[in-house]
């Protein structure tokens, strides 16, 4: 008798513990921080330097920064020395109109979400434009915010600002599928922003005004969400950037609270980047990336720079 009862009770006991833990884990105890070390700032060499950089990606030692205020992409070497830049304000081939997000594939192709021109522009690593994909949904132009390319570049996942959707395009720009739509339910969005993949190919989308991170299979099937509305640890006010580290942790920047919070692979809040229970404040942090050495790059928009950090162990 006892074993059968205990088995059942044990299951129920664990279920209750897990549920309650899930609810309270985000908002319990002292503020957990994780030390980071500021290594360098990238501000640009041109007169005026970077202006409202929105996103950053590192490809084989080169740092590509979306210099949104200047409608261009600026490229730096690993030491922060400016190498070259490409694009200027305009709608012509290779030019930009308020670009926001940037991504890359394993062939070193650079993808830029050219928001105001309703297109994704694809460049080689030297800034030569390879092709352009017009972002359309049901015949309507869509403002892309960010783009994530599969490693082989065969499929581009694009977040749409005005259709509140994630769209998957093939290389030729054909819309393969889309999901989302405006709403607060799981799988819907209110202003989807940055988009990345996990190591196991799940699609991770920052859902800004729903103040959460949503995870999907590449088919668009909803998996789970992370975060939630609020100012407590584990909650989000204006999530903008996201990056997944080698251990599968999600680092989420919050441009209003000016912090980067870290969640584990299951979506549980771990800590906020900072020291001694004090968050490290950044200025309007947005797009982020992590290079092969594990260094974190954060686009601090209102500080017109990209900050580089070493993440403590």
């Amino acid at each position, binding site marked *: *008798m006892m074993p059968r009862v205990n088995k059942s009770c044990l299951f129920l006991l664990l279920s209750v513990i897990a549920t309650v833990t899930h609810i309270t884990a985000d908002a319990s105890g002292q503020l957990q921080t994780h030390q980071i070390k500021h290594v360098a700032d990238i501000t640009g060499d041109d007169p005026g330097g970077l202006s409202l950089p929105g996103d950053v990606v590192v490809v084989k030692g080169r740092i590509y920064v979306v210099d949104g205020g200047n409608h261009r992409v600026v490229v730096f070497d690993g030491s922060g020395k400016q190498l070259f830049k490409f694009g200027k304000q305009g709608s012509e081939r290779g030019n930009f109109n308020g670009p926001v997000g940037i991504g890359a594939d394993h062939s070193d192709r650079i993808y830029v979400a050219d928001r105001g021109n309703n297109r994704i522009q694809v460049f080689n690593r030297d800034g030569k434009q390879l092709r352009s994909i017009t972002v359309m949904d049901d015949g309507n132009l869509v403002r892309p915010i960010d783009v994530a390319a599969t490693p082989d570049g065969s499929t581009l996942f694009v977040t749409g600002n005005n259709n509140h959707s994630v769209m998957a395009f093939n290389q030729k720009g054909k819309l393969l599928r889309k999901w989302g739509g405006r709403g607060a339910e799981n799988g819907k969005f209110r202003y989807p922003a940055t988009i990345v993949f996990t190591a196991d190919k799940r699609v991770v989308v920052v859902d800004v005004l729903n103040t959460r991170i949503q995870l999907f299979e590449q088919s668009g099937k909803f998996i789970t969400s992370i975060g939630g509305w609020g100012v407590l640890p584990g909650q989000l006010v204006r999530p903008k950037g996201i990056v997944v580290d080698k251990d599968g942790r999600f680092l989420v920047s919050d*441009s209003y609270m000016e912090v980067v919070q870290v969640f584990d692979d299951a979506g549980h809040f771990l800590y906020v980047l900072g020291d001694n229970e004090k968050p490290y404040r950044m200025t309007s942090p947005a797009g982020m990336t992590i290079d092969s050495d594990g260094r974190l790059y954060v686009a601090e928009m209102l500080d017109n720079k990209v900050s580089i950090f070493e993440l403590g162990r």
Partner: protein
Amino acid sequence: MAVYIKSVSRGFCILLWAGLLFGLLLTSIAEATRLPSANRECSICHIMWLTEFRRDDVTPLIQYQPKPVLKTGKQDVSSTPRMCFSCHDGFVLDSRFMWKKGRGHNHPVGEKPSDKIKIPLVEGKKLFPLNDDGKMYCGTCHTAHGVDWETDDSPVFMRIKSRDGELCEACHQDKTTGPEKGFHILHRKPDRFPADLKKAGSRLSSKGDITCQSCHRPHAAAEEPILVMRNNDSQLCLTCHIDKLAVKGSKHDMSLMAPDDLNIKGQKSQTAGPCSACHVPHQGGGLFLWARQTEKASDDVISSTCRSCHNKEGPAHKKLVGQYSHPTGVPITDPGIIATANKWVSRFKDFVGLKPIQVLPLYNKNGRRVAKDGLVTCASCHDPHNWAPHAKKTQRKDTHKLKGDGRSSFLRIANDENSSLCINCHREQSVVTMSKHNLDISAPQASNVAGRKVSTDGACSACHLPHKGQGSHMWARKKVDGKQGEDGLCASCHREEGLADKKLVGDKGHPVHAKMTMSATPEMLPLYKRKQAKNGEKGLIECATCHNPHQWDSRDAASKAGTDPEVDGDADTSFLRLPAVAQHGALCTECHN
């Protein structure tokens, strides 16, 4: 015992099931909090309304600061730039241009409105609220409440609809009074709306009229005072007023000629642009928004403005008009011109070959350009923006060394070898070109007191200078010592070794510079007043009493007989005003009857 255990186990299981259900309920509640509720939607901006700030068991990631003191003063965080940017950063909405580096000139916030600002009241409350310190903040003009977000009337959450500049004008009431009060015109269709201006952010009203936002933009302006494009070199002004572009680089470009000279607002044209030397868009003096202190009680505002520089102490003290200069503030009817809207007609008949009359600008006393009954001002002959007639651009390497002549000097019509500018109005005197008094015929090498020759400056220049003349008729010749009055002028040529030494009057000629002793007063012949003539005193007889130096033959204005330098006059020609033989000796009998 077994029953007891079984009972306890059952109770424990029930408890656990209840706990699980409670947990699931909590989960669903937690999930529900993720769905937009009215409370949550408000706290997207009104974040300090969140109750989480009151919890003692956990530290929020940001401090509770319901009304922090910022650079802009004490105000709710919901309308701070930081809050606005958290959405307007391109990820949700895109107003990055407002924060863009180097484009940061915005409508002032964090300042108290000046005394000129009149914020309208609605039911006793300011329509545009100030923050707790009485300073302007984002929320003074913007609100997320009370406007229809779905229309394009208030696309940026303005507190009132402002498609035609209503919001600006509600507070800046003093700026709406128009040119009569010295302010740039509003609510009129512009002559042009250049693409460059539009690209810079300039806007016309919904009716296509000029509004405040045609020149200003409240955010991300290129230059103070929140101008849509830079204006340190008058770029903004000259984008619309393209016909004034030639002022740049000219001698009227004060940024070159007098960079430290201050206008009425204390601005230097070196930094405020060439236009600012003479014009300001707000609080100018008069219709042309004058930026200069003009003479009080002037009968000619236009000329008075010119003299504000062209005076002994002014920046153009080297370019004075002199005591004897072409009159200003005088009617165009004086030389016999009848001016209508787009046409001038002379009451004197033109001789063949004369250039048609051009309409020149006339003004009333207040400086308004008028077609009829207008006054001649400096700006009638001079276009202060164009160094030379029809010049599109003035690109001089060394403006300081530039010297004017009859083909430049900001003249509207080149005063060329035909004296085209003078003759445009003085049609009656134009026949001088067909006489020996045209020195190009009789003494082409002669120079006037200014060293100018008729061959370049025209026939009129032999005897007259429009500025810095030598006497009442702006004489261009030096009077002969010992000769008085107008007689001295004629004698400057008609004397031994003079240009007209073959035409001397001799010692026993008709008296000149003498009082009229005859009882009769000539109607057809002019007498000349002494400088200090008493009232009622008859004028003096001068050479010009009998002679009209401009017309060879009084009976035939178009006669070309006088163009022969060797021709001798007789008692009916010889520049006499009336024939001395023909017509019963009309000249002599006019007095000696």
